[in-house]
């Protein structure tokens, strides 16, 4: 049997070499696996995630080779996958049984592991219905990689649709209901007027008296989704404000422009951080004229006196065999990544709950960049900043074209999170 398989594999290899270039790779006789390396030899790192995702969608099995050539994928050697990789411009190499055995031997002896990916996760993006796809890094990453997703917003969340999904990404939403405090700098701008109107209409339609009240209810539903086993990924303002919304149950932390009443004078003292996911002991920004929410964010981009300059953050190294989850989330071909601003850029260490795992930090700085934790049966990941390839992102900037950044290490971190829920459940235990 083994001999027959060997002969078959050899014959296939010889036949493949004999085929003309356009047919080689897509011919009927194929190597059993395709290796998509994720080191510097990969032609398009971001689209490689899409190829893996679509293979899962077709019901094929994929293995994520943690730390092997910067987090490579072992894909089925099917014609469909070969075709998909060719169309996407993703580098793949034929891998026969011998090559795979050799890879596995190397993995066994080093800080590496092979994690089976079994099922394409059902992905939802929390985003207003008419949001431009180019204003959210995760949406851009998914569009570029070709990962299918659906959009949900307040109505779907409140109506209990979240259990339909495995993975939820939060658009850069302000869950304190203060419209990201844009009112201070952009009052009268048509896009802001429209955004406020849309949110107010939705709050009314769902039976809430104000946007802050409605957003808190949405935040609580999302936290419940995580508790029940969902995967949550948030960037930018959503990270900070979802925790502020959760911790402020029963306390008015919104400025009067959002709900008609000022923030409670004793709001800081009344925050119940045990309700939040990631942070504790943060101090709220009590001035309604400061476009800042709290001191969770280390960079305070919209506060001229407190704004900190961008540096670079370093990804932590985890043990692939003992800690596969954080290892999956930090797979990258670069360990040091230039930082990028967002309304929330980073997270002050002082405000992190003790159980939070830090996955990237700026050495020597009082803040960290990339964190994760578990709540109930689910898990959350927070990644500070708005767009990894537009460090100074300003409203109205030209959209980021990921075809110009196919190797973006910052975007890889987002896509690591997309595939992470596909990992076999027992592999996720840490």
């Amino acid at each position: 049997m083994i001999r027959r398989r060997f002969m078959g594999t050899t014959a296939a290899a010889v036949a493949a070499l004999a085929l003309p270039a356009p047919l080689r790779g897509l011919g009927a006789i194929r190597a059993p696996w395709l290796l998509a390396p994720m080191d510097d030899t990969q032609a398009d790192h971001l689209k490689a995630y899409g190829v893996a995702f679509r293979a899962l969608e077709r019901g094929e099995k994929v293995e994520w080779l943690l730390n092997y050539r910067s987090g490579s994928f072992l894909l089925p050697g099917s014609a469909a996958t070969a075709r998909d990789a060719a169309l996407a411009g993703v580098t793949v190499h034929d891998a026969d049984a011998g090559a795979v055995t050799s890879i596995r031997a190397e993995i066994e002896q080093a800080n590496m592991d092979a994690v089976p990916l079994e099922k394409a996760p059902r992905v939802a993006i929390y985003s207003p219905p008419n949001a431009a796809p180019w204003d959210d890094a995760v949406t851009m990453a998914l569009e570029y990689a070709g990962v299918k997703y659906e959009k949900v917003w307040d109505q779907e969340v409140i109506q209990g649709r979240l259990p339909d999904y495995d993975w939820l990404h939060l658009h850069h939403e302000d869950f304190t209901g203060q419209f990201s405090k844009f009112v201070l700098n952009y009052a009268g701008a048509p896009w802001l007027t429209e955004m406020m109107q849309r949110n107010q209409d939705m709050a009314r339609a769902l039976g809430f008296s104000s946007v802050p009240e409605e957003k808190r209810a949405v935040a609580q539903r999302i936290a419940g989704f995580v508790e029940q086993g969902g995967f949550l990924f948030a960037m930018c303002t959503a990270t900070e404000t979802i925790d502020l919304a959760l911790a402020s149950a029963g306390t008015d932390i919104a400025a009067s422009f959002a709900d008609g009443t000022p923030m409670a004078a004793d709001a800081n003292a009344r925050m119940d951080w045990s309700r939040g996911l990631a942070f504790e002991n943060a101090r709220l920004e009590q001035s309604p004229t400061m476009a800042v929410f709290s001191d969770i964010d280390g960079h305070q981009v919209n506060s001229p006196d407190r704004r900190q300059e961008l540096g670079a953050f370093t990804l932590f190294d985890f043990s692939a065999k003992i800690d596969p989850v954080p290892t999956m989330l930090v797979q990258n071909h670069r360990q040091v990544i230039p930082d990028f601003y967002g309304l929330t850029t980073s997270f002050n260490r002082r405000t992190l709950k003790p159980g939070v795992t830090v996955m990237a930090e700026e050495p020597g700085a009082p803040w960290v960049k990339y964190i994760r934790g578990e709540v109930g049966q689910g898990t959350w990941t927070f990644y500070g900043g708005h767009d990894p390839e537009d460090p100074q992102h300003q409203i109205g900037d030209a959209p980021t074209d990921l075809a110009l950044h196919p190797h973006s290490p910052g975007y890889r971190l987002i896509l690591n999170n997309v595939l992470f829920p596909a990992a076999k459940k027992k592999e996720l235990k840490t």
Partner: protein
Amino acid sequence: MTRVASFVFMLTLLVGIAPPLMAQRPQVPGDLGVALDAERRGDFAAAAVAYQRALAANQADATALMGLERSLEPLNRSGEMLVPAQAAVARAPSPAAYSVLVRAWVTHRNVDSARAAVAGWSAMAKGEPAPYRELVQALVRTRQRAEAKRAVEWGRVQLGNDNAMAYDMAQLRASEGDWTGATREWLAAARELPGYRLTALAALTPVPVRERATVRTALGTERTLEARELEAGLLARWGDPDEAVKVLIAALPSDRVRASEALRGFASGLQTRPDAARARGAALEELARRNSGDAAARARVEAAQAYQQAGDQAAARRVLAALPAGRSGSAAAASAGSTLIGVLLSEGKPAEAEAELAKLRDRLPADEWQALRRSIALGWARAGQLDRGAAALAGDSTVEGLAARGRLALFRGDIKTAVDLFRAAGPYAGSREEAAHRTALLALVQPLTADTLPALGAALLALEQGDSARGAKVLEQVGDALPAEKGGAGVTLLAASVRGSLGDSTDAEALLRKAAASALPATAPAAELELARLLLAQRRSAEAIGLLEHLILTWPESATVPEARRALDEAKGAVPPT
């Protein structure tokens, strides 16, 4: 030679050579030398130890003190600098020791003590901004920007100069997004030191679009030529060079020298911007108006060239007509003549251009004269007089001349001669655009088996003359008459491109489908790509996606694949539209 003899020989060589070699190295005494060596090797721990030993011997040794500071930084031990810096200042106060002390206090986040050190330093260097600037920069480096601003303000009070450290303040304001404040500071900095004008221009260029009006308002508060120069420079860089030149000209003083300097500076800044050629022409014309003699003539010729580059032949002629007569021997007159020839050829007047060139025969360098002859030859071709074009090239044995003769041969339909001449000219003759055009023509005609094909020559000549409709029609006929693999597919593809450029998408689509069906590696992928683009323009995305996928999978080695992938991404909405 035995091993011993060899050793002795080598030893003799080394003894003889070593002293001169050693003499070339700077002699740095003891610990300092060891420290510098270690630092150069990147062994900062060893360097720090050696610098500390040097400081133990002499606490005021500025070289050792600053070396220690440099070495401790990569070791993340900058905090240790405080004690040696204090000792150095106590032993022998100097600007170097004070600067290290200021930085050390800032590292310890003790701004009050840093200010005290600045005060001590300032007492030694009265009226100098350097101590305050050191404090400001140290604060910026450690991200204490609010403190840095307070330090600038404190320094200004101490120095009695509201504009001191404007350069530093400008950057602090810009980092906060305070573009009004930054602009005012840049103006102050440029007033203090004109060299900052270019820095200000570079620093304010990236201002976001919505903030640009704010910057212009801030500039408008100052009614100086410097402010207008900055405004004009910014407008030109923000994409409105025509408004920029108006702003500048309106603000020019009667002082000829200063006005000329401003105009020349503005024009130089636009030298590499083809989109700003008209504005450059206007600035140079104004420069000519404000000068006389050779300077005016030179400016006028440059203005005419700029206008010609902008396609404004009337303005070019107007400027050339204003050139003073009677200076026919000058270099400016020769340049004016060359420019005029270009204008005449653009207007389709090769005979007048030839007559003008004849006047310049003795005044132009030979290569320039020949280049103009080649331009005139192509001018004759465009006028349909290929024989006169060939006559204009007589005696031109340069590679550029061979290439031009190849084009004329092609216009006649003499395929064999054209291919021979193009090959003889090689791939590098002429400008990059000319070389690329010639390569495309060669690729088109190489598969043809006939030595002559007058219809193809007529079609290409029609295209050269700007008669695209006739050119496309004849190309279609030629493409139909030729077998696909013998050049027919390539000619059909060219006909399709011309049809597409004319907006005739139905015919273009039919021709592209025909060229794609040829299944020839040189033509089919290019035809499929162009067809997919045409379909995308018609919002027929599904068909376009199918075509692009077919192209990528069928012709993976084709040079069109990267463009096809880009088009596929756009068709699928995976990237923003170009």
